[in-house]
Each structure stands twice: as C-alpha cells, then as structure tokens.
C-alpha cells in the first residue's frame, strides 16, 4: 500500500495534475453555487474538457475536483440564500441558513468547510484500506459473477433510488438498458434498433444522455419556476468573521468523528449516496443530542450544520469504492465518471489496480489534495465567489443552456446529437414531473453494454444460461438481486395496507 501511495503522490503532485485539482475545485465551487446546478450537471458539462486532456489520471483528478467543489459550492448557496443547488445539501440549509440570518454567515461557512474537509479526508483514508481489499476479492470473479454483480448493482440502485416506488425505478433501469442496446451489439457488428437512422449506428452518446437527463431538465425547471434560482437579488450581503470559537470546535469534534464513518459506509452502498447520508447524519445527531442542544437543531445549531456536511462529503468519497473496485457506479455522479473513464479507454474494475495503478492511487491521493484545496483556497475566496449569486437569471439561464448544448456537440461535431439532446431533455423533464428517478436510467445505460458483454461471455462458456444456477456465487448474487427488489416493495405494500386501516387526516 505504501508503494501505491508513493506512486499516487508522484502522479498527483505533477504540476499539471495539481493545476487540475485546484482548477476543478474552483470551477466546481463556482458552478455548484448556482442554485439548480448539481454535481451531476456540472460533471456532465465538464466531461468534454476532461476527455480532451487525453490523460485519464488528469481527467479523473479534474472531474473528482469538480465533484467536491460542486458539493461545497452547493452548501454555500444553501447557507447564504437557502437555495440548495444539490439534494445532498438540503440538510445543510436546515441550520446553515438560520445561522446566516443571525449574522453568522462567515462562521457557518467555516464550519461547513471544516466539516467537509474532515468528512472527505477520513473518507479518503478509509478508501485507502477498503478499495484494495475489495479489489482483491473482486479479482476472483468470472464473467458470470460480473453479470450477476451488475444485476445486483442495478437492482440495489432501483431499490434505493426509487424512494419507495421500486417499480418506477426499475422501469427507468430497464429503459436505460434498452437504450444501451441501440447500435452495434456485443460480439456481432450488426446494427439493431436504429430505425434506419445512420447517426444511431454507434448508439446513443453517453454525454448527450447525461446532459439530457440532468443538466437540461434542471435548466428547464429554473425557467419554469424563477423562485428556484434566487439569484440576482443581491441578498448575499457581506460575509465577515470566518473564525469559530474553541467551544464550538469542541462540540462539533465528536459529530465529525461519527459522521465521517457513517457517511462513508452509506456512500459505499450502491444507490444510497450523499443525499441519504446527509439526512441520516442530521437525524442521528439530533436524536443523540440532549436537552438544550437538541432544541437548537433547526434554529442554527453548529452540530446540525456539521453533521450533514461531514456525512455528505464522506459519502461522496465512499461512492468511489464500488466504482474503482468493481466498476459499478453507486450514484448518478459516479456513473457519469465511469462513462468518462470508458471514453478515455480505461475500464474501472478490479483490474484497474493492476493495469493502471497510477490512475487508482492518483485519484485517492488527489482526494486529500482536493479537500485541502477546498479548505485553504476556497474559504478565503468565498466572499468573492458569492458575488456570482448576483448574476441576473436572464443572462445565467441562456449560458447554462448553451453549455449543455456545447457539451454534447463538441464531443461529436454532429448537429443531430443536439436534436437528440433536446428531444431527450424534454422527455426527461416530463419524467421528472411524475417523479420517475433518472439516475437509474443513466446507470442502466452505462452498465448495459458491460452487462451484455459479460452475459455473452458467460453464455458462450457454458453454452446457455445454465451458469445462473450452476455457479454458486452467481446464484447467490442473483437471489440477492431478486430479494433487493421484492423486500422493499412488499414492505411498502404492507405499510400501505396498515395505513388503509387508519382513518386519513384531513
């Protein structure tokens, strides 16, 4: 492991990669602060730039920097104007905004930055131990197990992401898998499901799909409801007094310890991610707190601010474990990162540590550096970065739309791609109206091709689908996948039946 860390340091500490970390964190913070633009949209917009870099380590370091920056930027807008740009920072606004209204915006930002730093750093240390161990186990897997593992991943994502509506999430996953079958198939170069359209011969572009699913609906939501983007009202005000007292530091220290570990473990689970980690972190800390402390929650408690901030950053780091070791993304954001890696000709999975150790370790080391950059560089800059919140939406929205269009255009230089983007973006917006979860769709799309590749290999080896019950590990994983789908839906049904017995309130 020591050698690995040294290798990571030597890659991450080159001038170019340091610039990538700093640049990524700054860009992420800048854009993440704009209400309505989450890490998924920002990373999707940044992918063409990262791919042009050519070097997978630099690209991943840049994108990971953007990811942390965006989460940090999201917390800033939650605290300053109560407009969380990202779902995972909603819990931050519960206590952050009351603090800012009480004139303690500077202090709230400092606590947020320190908590994010601690969460991210502890997460990175845990990743250092978790990832190689997991990769070792994963090396024993064959294509049959991989196929089953991907099915488990997809059903876990459907089970967790659907917020009780498993069928809807599953439907989105299947749609994603179907979209992945458009174009040439595994082992055969014949095109299928292209409806005779030449541009679909090589399938849908992943960047276009990512933009259409996240960035475009978000922008359309901003247009539809101007209250979502509370920019341009000059409400950000002056930010002074960034220091925190010793007592405050003492009171948040145990919170940070607990939430870094809890957040990380939640982040490792596919489908759970930063949002659940932050809400759970907030709830746990509120329940643990006693008397006066508990009453402060929701009115500007430092603990209430530190808990979700720490947990969401630790979870972000945790979500890299399944991505780097199994090649299975646990969240929408890591799915986009996976797509970017594939575009750079790197296939994440247990072989990543052996084939491209420099990428694996550089990403881990860059996480420390990224967290440090966020703390040292961004904190003093926050008062200036916050001026961005004063850009009028009349200018902001056309630019967001333009960057979305550009992102999918410059990768392909094909105007048809733009038409597909707009069409899919409108469909995705309608799906969002009806609360269909979109991350399972993208994850299904990205895993689709790998799923089919592994399925075809396993089928050819056993001359049929008998591998599903002949290999014990495959069978166990497939049973687990079915369980993951059935248990939550039966539970939801039972809860529904129970509720039916009780008279509904007015």
């Amino acid at each position: 492991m020591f050698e690995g860390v040294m290798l990571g340091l030597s890659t991450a500490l080159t001038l170019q990669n340091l610039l990538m970390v700093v640049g990524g964190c700054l860009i992420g913070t800048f854009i993440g602060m704009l209400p309505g633009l989450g890490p998924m949209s920002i990373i999707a917009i940044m992918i063409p730039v990262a791919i042009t870099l050519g070097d997978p380590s630099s690209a991943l370091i840049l994108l990971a920097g953007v990811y942390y920056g965006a989460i940090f930027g999201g917390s800033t807008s939650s605290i300053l104007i109560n407009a969380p740009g990202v779902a995972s920072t909603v819990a931050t606004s519960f206590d952050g905004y009351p603090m800012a209204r009480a004139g303690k915006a500077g202090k709230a930002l400092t606590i947020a930055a320190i908590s994010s730093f601690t969460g991210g750093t502890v997460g990175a240390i845990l990743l250092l131990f978790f990832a190689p161990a997991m990769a070792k186990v994963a090396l024993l897997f064959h294509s049959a197990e991989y196929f089953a593992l991907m099915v488990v991943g997809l059903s876990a994502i459907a089970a967790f992401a659907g917020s009780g509506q498993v069928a809807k999430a599953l439907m989105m996953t299947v749609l994603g898998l179907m979209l992945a079958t458009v174009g040439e198939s595994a082992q055969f170069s014949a095109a299928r499901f292209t409806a005779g359209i030449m541009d679909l011969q090589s399938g849908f572009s992943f960047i276009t799909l990512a933009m259409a699913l996240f960035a475009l609906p978000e922008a359309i939501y901003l247009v539809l409801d101007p209250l979502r983007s509370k920019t341009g009202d000059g409400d950000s005000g002056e930010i002074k007094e960034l220091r925190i007292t010793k007592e405050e530091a003492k009171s948040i220290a145990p919170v940070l310890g607990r939430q870094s570990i809890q957040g990380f473990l939640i982040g490792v689970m596919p489908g759970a991610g930063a949002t659940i980690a932050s809400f759970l972190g907030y709830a746990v800390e509120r329940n643990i707190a006693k008397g006066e402390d508990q009453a402060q929650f929701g009115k500007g408690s430092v603990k209430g601010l530190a808990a979700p901030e720490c947990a969401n950053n630790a979870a972000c780091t945790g979500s890299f474990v399944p991505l780097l070791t199994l090649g299975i993304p646990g969240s929408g954001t890591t799915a986009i990162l996976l797509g970017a890696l594939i575009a750079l000709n790197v296939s994440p999975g247990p072989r990543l540590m052996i084939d491209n150790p420099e990428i694996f370790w550089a990403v881990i080391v860059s996480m420390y550096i990224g967290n440090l950059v966020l703390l040292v560089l961004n904190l003093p800059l926050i008062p200036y970065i916050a001026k961005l919140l004063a850009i009028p939406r009349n200018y902001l929205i056309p630019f967001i739309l333009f960057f979305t269009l550009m992102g999918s255009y410059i990768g392909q230089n094909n105007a048809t791609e733009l038409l597909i983007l707009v069409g899919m973006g409108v469909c995705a917006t309608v799906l969002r109206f009806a609360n269909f979860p979109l991350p399972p769709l993208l994850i299904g799309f990205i895993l689709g091709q790998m799923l089919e590749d592994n399925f075809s290999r396993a089928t050819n080896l056993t001359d049929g689908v008998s591998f599903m019950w002949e290999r014990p590990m495959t069978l166990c994983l497939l049973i687990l996948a079915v369980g993951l789908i059935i248990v939550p839906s039966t539970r939801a049904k039972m809860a529904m039946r129970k509720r039916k017995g009780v008279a509904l309130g007015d």
Partner: protein
Amino acid sequence: MTLDRSIAFIFLILCIVYSYTAFISMEASLLPFERNMSFLPNTMPKWLGVLGILCSLVVIFNTGPEHAHKPGDGDINYRRLGDYKIGQALMLIGAMLAYALLLRTLGFLAATSLFLAGGSAILGERNLKLMIPISIAAAFFIWYLVQEVLGIFLRPWPFFLG
C-alpha cells in the same frame, strides 16, 4: 389517467414494439449457422422486452390516484403548468432546436451570439446595449477557448464564407 400511468402506458407500447423487433424481426433475419449459437444479438433484448412489459404493467396497476406523486414544495406541479413560465420554457426549447438546425449554416459565432441574445430576450431582458455585446464577446471567447486552446474544430463563419 395520472401522469405516472400515462408514462407507463407509453413505455408499455414502446416495450411491445421493442419485443416484436427482438422476437420476430431480428429472429427472422438470423443466418442459418447463427441459429445454433447460444448468444445472439437479440438474446438480451428479448429478456429486456419482457422485463420492460412486466415493469410497466406493475406501474400501471399499482399507481392509482392514491399512489400518484404529489409534488412537494420544491417540485413543479404539472397539473398547474399555467402558473409557471411555460411560455418562456417552450420558446427556449424552440430556440435550442433552432440553434441545432442553424449551427452549421450560420457558423458557430453568429449562431451562438444569436442564441445567447435571443435566450435572454425570451427571459425578459430588454437592455440591448448590454445584452448584444455580452453575447458576441462570450461567443468569441468560447470559440477561441474550444478551437485554439482545446484544439476542437468549430466552424466559426457561415457556410458561404468557407
């Protein structure tokens, strides 16, 4: 019918067409030697088609009015779209389509400047003196960044200027 159900119904139709292609059209176009192979281009689509039909049926039968999604505070209530800026949203979508169709003909600089200025005009910006210079400067800056720094070709001028 709730929006959830309508979407599931459309998905059901899509799955039926998809399955028809997988089970019948693709099967018919297989070559004789391919018929004995254990994995074919339509193997996975067959599974997906059936799974998709099952999922959409579950959503159709399980999401009655009592299950339908009720928009929360931050959500958009699709039943009252008229209360939102739907006109602006539709016009911007139109502007994006126009941008996609005119990008090649007008060239990057003209199309982008027009899109940015038009977009802010749709959103209610009336300060032409500020809006037009910002759009043109931004288009030039981005073109320079993409073409000269990143090295990705973007045709700057209209088709008749080469």
